[in-house]
């Protein structure tokens, strides 16, 4: 089930496949109720955010993304995720007005970001750690029971089985040559 709905592995727990809420945990020790679709931690303001986008738009039942807990120092990953939803990315793939140190979205198409913005309502609870309050907001979202967004959007698909696609059968890397005794030399010199 996890693989079907969430193509990009990571530190998350998949719960109710048709739940409409996903929960992003910053600095907080908290297990959301099991009727949410998915929850997990967010550390980095680049790859971490990309994973969240890929793993929410792949499940069209998810319509709310709740971000809770204290912000990640330096990375400002939670605020960068809010900024992405609000502003998108610039021509250098930098999240517009993101406060994080390296807030770049490099592995997803702009279409995936637009889908994320359209499918998901972000609920910014950054700085909030009271579990009862977060539970209440999850319950509010669940009660709204919005319809599915339609078809899943698969932003990234990992290869499902072992394959061999040798494009370079030389040792280690195309830039260097390593002889049979271990001498490294730059290729072409």
């Amino acid at each position, binding site marked *: 089930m996890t693989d079907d709905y969430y193509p*990009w*592995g*990571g*530190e998350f727990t998949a719960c109710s496949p048709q739940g409409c809420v996903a929960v992003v945990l910053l600095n907080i020790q908290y297990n959301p109720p099991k009727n949410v679709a998915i929850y997990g931690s967010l550390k980095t303001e*680049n*790859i971490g955010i990309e994973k969240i986008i890929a793993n929410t738009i792949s499940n069209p039942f998810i319509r709310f993304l709740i971000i809770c807990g204290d912000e990640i*120092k*330096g*990375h400002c990953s939670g605020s960068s995720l809010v900024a992405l939803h609000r502003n998108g990315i610039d021509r*250098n*793939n*930098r999240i517009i007005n993101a406060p*994080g*140190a*390296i807030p*770049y*979205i*490099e*592995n997803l198409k702009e279409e995936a970001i637009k889908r994320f913005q359209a499918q998901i309502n972000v609920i910014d609870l950054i700085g909030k750690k009271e579990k009862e309050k977060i539970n209440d907001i999850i319950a509010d979202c669940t009660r709204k029971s919005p319809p599915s967004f339609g078809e899943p959007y698969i932003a990234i698909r990992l290869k499902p089985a072992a394959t061999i696609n040798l494009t370079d059968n030389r040792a*280690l*890397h195309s*830039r*260097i040559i*390593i002889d049979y*005794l*271990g*001498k*490294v*030399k*730059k290729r072409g*010199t």
Partner: protein
Amino acid sequence: MFSFTKEQKVFNISGISIGGQPGMYPTVLFGGLFFKGEPDFDDGKRHLLTIFECSKQTGVPVIPDFFIRKVEYIQPILSFIEKAIPKKHPFSIDIIEPSIKIQTLEQLARRKLLPRTIYNSIHIGITKEETEALRTYTPETAIIVAFNPKDKSPDGKIEVLENGAHLLEIGLLEITRQIGIEKVLIDTAALAPGENSGAAIAAIPVIKEEYGLPTGCAIHNVVEKSRWLNDFPFAKKTVDVASNNAIPLFGGDYSIFGPIQNAELVVPLVAWQDILVSEYTENYFGISPITSHPRRKLLK
């Protein structure tokens, strides 16, 4: 085990030599302090004594890496550095937030600590303000993290070093050169499993042959992010420690091995690996180790 055709630079960082052909200088180990919570200086002092003792016994050089999470920790941590580590011994400061980096640089200058400082790190998130601060308060050495969010392969890592990979106007090596930092260590940016984690190791010989600069990484980060290992807590510790072996085996010069608490395990392990590398590189490539190398120290 390798030897490189490109001439390899060796930097003397406040008494510790780093870089060169594999087998000549021991792998330098960076052990981290104060990652979580309030800095516990008594605990930190105990661990520093342990790591320096391990270093003395084995010949593996060690450098404490101080994580500074909050502005209010800058002064107490710098005071701790002045008191708790030997005078003239190098140390690194590991800071994420640019504003804390800038304030720390000012304080390091005021305390005349910049010649012993390894700035951890310069990466594609460098801001104009940070660049200016580094020009004004220039540390002796900097670690450049070759993280390229678009291309995590060795080629992508070289791209950020070389031309900024369209994320910056110029490459990180040129930025560092313009700042005036002469001693540069390349960090190949170890990423989580699923993010081409193996590229951090494969990139070591590629980057060393390309630039001849001391190269390493924090490979333990990959272990930390291997969530499935949480089901095997005993093995997780072993894997965390053992991961450091891959760096000298692939010709690397240093490892940032994570919490200093692991020093008693990591330092002898890397000494063992350095001996293994040295035996081959001397026998085949004719590279003899320096007198303080673990092979000379531990094999009488």
